[in-house]
Structures are given as structure tokens and as C-alpha cells.
């Protein structure tokens, strides 16, 4: 029965492997090649050895961007998972019990849809909306609601708070998906377990930490990986929302933002490629670490 499996394997994998070989592997080889060159995108390529990397090492904006990458990589998963768990718990078992049945809070079905809405909205639209929310004059949604006597908050124009604003938008958009994800996980936990614990006098907090959290651990790890990827992708939002693309004064710059600007604004393709190489190794490190920590046995 096992004979003739190779025609299937080769037939099924030929297209994806060819696509990866050209669009990903070959493209990366070229990025590595360009990272040791000085090139404006046109004309001859001049190879300059490790000059680009030396320049990187001495570039303050690079270190600043790296810190911002780390900030998002750490805080986006933590905040989103915490909020996602809280809402999922409220929706599923937070509403007290009636007739011996634990229930979600009032209106849980409506929340499920509401929470998913931001996930459906394109980043471009989210950026436009939050541009209005965070507008730094009285026409802004938040500033409009503040008392007239207060000086308007600057939000994205304030060096200290700009990156936090980006984090808020990312969390706002992501949290709905994780509420649904965790809700599905919680739905598969036997109700009897909660009932039994509740009969023994467990409070909501105890139920959450002693039952829900341990039983959902696998799902939480999956969420961590997805959110890590999302954190690396934050560039798209930063590109369209922030003052001066990554500003003010580099306050929201991330590595991907630097790559984009160096390629398309400063025509420093070599330098951008060197940044691409750094980003490559950073993401691989992140991937290796998460794979090790989550240890997906089925691979």
C-alpha cells in the first residue's frame, strides 16, 4: 500500500517549494549580498565589506529602534493576552451561576461580535480612525471630551507617549481575536470542573487562576507566537500613523521602519539590506526561542 507515494509528494510540494525557493530563499540571498554593498538602487553595485554593519553599530537611531522593537515584542503579547483572558473569562463564566450553571456576563453574545469587529477592520482604516481619536487639537475624539480649560494632549506628537499610543491601537485591534480564541479554549473545559470548584467555595479569582489558566496554557503559547509576529509587523501602523514616519525624533522608529525609509526615501539600499539581515537573525532567534519554550511535540 505504500508504493507510489513519491509521485504524490513531489507533485504536491513542487509548486510551494518552487515559490519559496524564488520568492523567499533567493530573495534573502540577495538581501545578504546587498548588505555588504553600497548601492542606491540604480547603477553599479559597489562592495564595501562590513561598512554597513559598522555604521549600524554607531547609529543611535538603530539602537533606539531596537529598543522599540523589544518594547512591542514584550508588551503587545502580555497586555493582549491578559485582556483577552479577562474578557473570555467574563464572557464564559464571569456572570455568576443560576440553577447550578455557570454563565457568561449579561450580553456575552453581543460582546463576542463587538470584540471581533476591530479584527475585521483593515489597518489602513484603523489608522484613519485612531488618527481622529488621537488628534492633538480639540477636534480629536479624546481631546474633544476633555474639559475646555485643559491643554490638549499631544498623543502621537509627544515623544514620551507616541509609542504607547501605537501599542494601544495594536492591542485594541488584536484583542478580539484572542477573546474568541480563548473563549473556544474555555468552552472545551468541562463545566463540571467549575461547578465542583464553585461548590467547594472557589471565588472567580480562584477559578481563573487554578482552573482556567492551567487548562488553557497551550492556547496561550500559540497566542504568544502570533502576537510576537504581530509585534514585528507593527511597522505598517507606525508608517501611516506617526508623525514624520517613526517620529517625533525617532520616538516610534522600529527596524522595519528604518529599512523602509532607507530604501525608498534615502536610496540607501545597502544599508537597508544590512538592517534586513539584522532583522532576519532577530526573528529567527525569537522563533527558535518560542519553539523551544512551547515545544510543539507534533512537528
Amino acid at each position, binding site marked *: 500500500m505504500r508504493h507510489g507515494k513519491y509521485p504524490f509528494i513531489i507533485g504536491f510540494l513542487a509548486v510551494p517549494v518552487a515559490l519559496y525557493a524564488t520568492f523567499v530563499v533567493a530573495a534573502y540571498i540577495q538581501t545578504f549580498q546587498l548588505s555588504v554593498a553600497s548601492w542606491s538602487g540604480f547603477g553599479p553595485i559597489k562592495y564595501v565589506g562590513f561598512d554597513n554593519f559598522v555604521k549600524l553599530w554607531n547609529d543611535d537611531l538603530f539602537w533606539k529602534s531596537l529598543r522599540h522593537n523589544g518594547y512591542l515584542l514584550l508588551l503587545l503579547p502580555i497586555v493582549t493576552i491578559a485582556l483577552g483572558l479577562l474578557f473570555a473569562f467574563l*464572557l464564559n463564566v464571569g456572570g455568576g451561576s443560576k440553577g447550578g450553571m455557570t454563565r457568561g456576563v449579561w450580553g456575552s453574545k453581543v460582546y463576542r461580535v463587538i470584540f471581533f469587529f476591530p479584527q475585521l477592520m483593515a489597518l489602513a482604516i484603523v489608522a484613519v480612525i485612531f488618527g481622529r481619536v488621537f488628534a492633538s487639537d480639540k477636534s480629536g475624539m479624546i481631546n474633544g471630551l476633555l474639559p475646555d480649560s485643559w491643554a490638549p494632549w499631544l498623543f502621537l506628537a509627544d515623544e514620551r507617549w507616541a509609542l504607547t499610543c501605537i501599542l494601544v491601537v495594536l492591542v485594541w485591534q488584536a484583542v478580539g481575536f484572542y477573546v474568541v480564541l480563548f473563549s473556544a479554549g474555555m468552552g472545551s473545559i468541562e463545566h463540571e470542573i467549575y461547578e465542583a470548584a464553585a461548590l467547594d467555595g472557589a471565588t472567580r479569582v480562584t477559578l481563573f487562576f487554578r482552573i482556567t489558566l492551567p487548562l488553557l496554557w497551550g492556547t496561550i503559547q500559540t497566542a504568544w507566537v502570533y502576537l510576537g509576529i504581530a509585534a514585528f509587523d507593527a511597522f505598517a501602523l507606525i508608517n501611516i500613523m506617526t508623525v514624520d514616519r517613526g517620529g517625533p525624533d525617532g520616538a516610534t522608529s522600529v527596524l522595519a521602519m528604518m529599512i523602509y525609509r532607507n530604501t525608498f526615501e534615502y536610496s540607501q539600499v545597502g544599508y537597508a539590506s544590512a538592517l534586513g539581515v539584522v532583522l532576519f537573525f532577530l526573528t529567527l532567534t525569537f522563533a527558535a526561542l518560542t519553539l523551544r519554550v512551547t515545544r510543539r511535540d507534533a512537528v
Partner: protein
Amino acid sequence: MARHDDGVITVGRSRTGTFFANATGIVFGLIMIFPVYWVLNTAFKPDSEVRSFTPTFWPHDFTLDNFKSALGEELFIPSMINGLIITAMAVAAALVVGFLAALAIARFSFYGRKAIILVVLAVQLVPFLALLIPLFLMLQSANLTNSLVGVALVYLVLLLPYTVWTLRGFISGIPRELDEAAMIDGCTRAQVFWRIILPLTGPGLVATSVYGFIQAWNEFIIINTLNDPKNQNLMAWLLYNQTERGTAWGPLMAGAIITSIPVVVFFLLIQRNIATGLTAGAVKG
């Protein structure tokens, strides 16, 4: 600990606790919905009301002018059609290629299988932006910049990892005994894939096509880099119009609503399946 009043048994939890849980739900529900509501509110207001410094929480003069002017905007309709074509091509191709690849990985053991899985995973993690320069050069030499096919190809590569990974989870969940039983009854291997595994992977195909649709429809950086204004999708159009005519909030919000409609409709159609579809593949690993 158990209290009995009007037939309600409240076990180990206080009424105040329930109140706070409900209140938290309402507050956060409002925060989540507010920006969406504000878009709708702005889209139906006349320009004078949008610009007014005293915000109105309901349009006083309800108008559809914003939608008319967005639809009448140069390149709006072409951008929408471009977006639909690119998305349809990328999603359809991702489903076919992804399903076959997932079959190979889930149902056969062969040399290099683990390597393929790891590469697929790693690619999903690496930011695509780092590849934008070589991709541009590559597509340029193949005469595929400024074309819908070129963009669809790049999107296909972007969608494949998630598609393969999710479908693999679904296929692994189908017991091998089913395959074997069918083969004993005289099915060929190809018939097993077509008649048994494909129908049983249905929810997975739905979930991945939703994901693919949302990703491809909403993407704007790649298309913006590769194509001229005439070959953009709606997202790129939206951003271009925001920067070009930054203050016309009414039409912009109306445009945003129209842009979101396909995704919302798609979501409402398959809403029942989405939780199981998205999670089943993700958790099974």
C-alpha cells in the same frame, strides 16, 4: 456558602462580584465599539457638522452625500475591482497549493519533511519587509511590477505558511483508519484525498480562506511599493486620499465603510464556523 433566594443558587460568588463583572464588560465593550461607531457617525454627517468643534453624537442632518462622493472619486471603483481580482487569485491559489502541500506533510513521511515544516514556520515569522527590495527587482526583471498578477503572487507566498500550517492541523485530525478503510474498499490514493479528506477539511478551508481574504484585501504596503496608482487596491487608495486631502473626513470615512463591507459580509456569513475553524488548526499543532 450556598444561598437560596428566589430559586437562584449563587454558589461561592457575591452579587457585587457579578455586578462588577457585568460593569467591566460594558465599559470595555464601549471602548471597543466607540471608534467603529464614530466612523459610522462621521460618514453620515454633512461636512459642516464634521468640522464643528462641538461633537455631535448623532448626525443632525442625515446625508448619503459622503458615500456618493467617495464612489464618484477617481480610481475608487477601479481600485475596488483590482482588490477583488488580486484577493480572489491569491486566496484560490493559496487554497489549492496549500491543501496539496498540507496533504503531503500530514499524510506522508519522507526525507526532508521536518525541514519543510520548519522553513514554512520560519518564513511566517520573518518580516516580509526585509525582502521587499529583492522582490521588487525580481518582479521587475519578470515584467511583473505594476501588474495584478505580480502582487497576487507575492500575496500567495504570504498566505501559504498559515494555510499549510492550519490545514495540516485539520488533516492530521482526520483518523488514518478512514483512509485505510476506503483503500480496502477499492479507492485509489487520489480518490481518498478527493472524496474523504477534502470534504472533511471543509471547516479548515473556510477558516484559511477567511484569513487569506482578510490579509490580501487589507494589505497595502506591498501593493503600494510594486504598483502605480492605477493598479492599487482600496487600502492604498484610502491612504493616498487621506494624505492628499487630509481634511475631507466625511468621504474618507464613507470610503472606509465601503472598503470594510466585503470583509464584514464574509465574516457574518461564516461567523458560526470562525471560532472552531481558527482555533482547531492552531491548537492541534
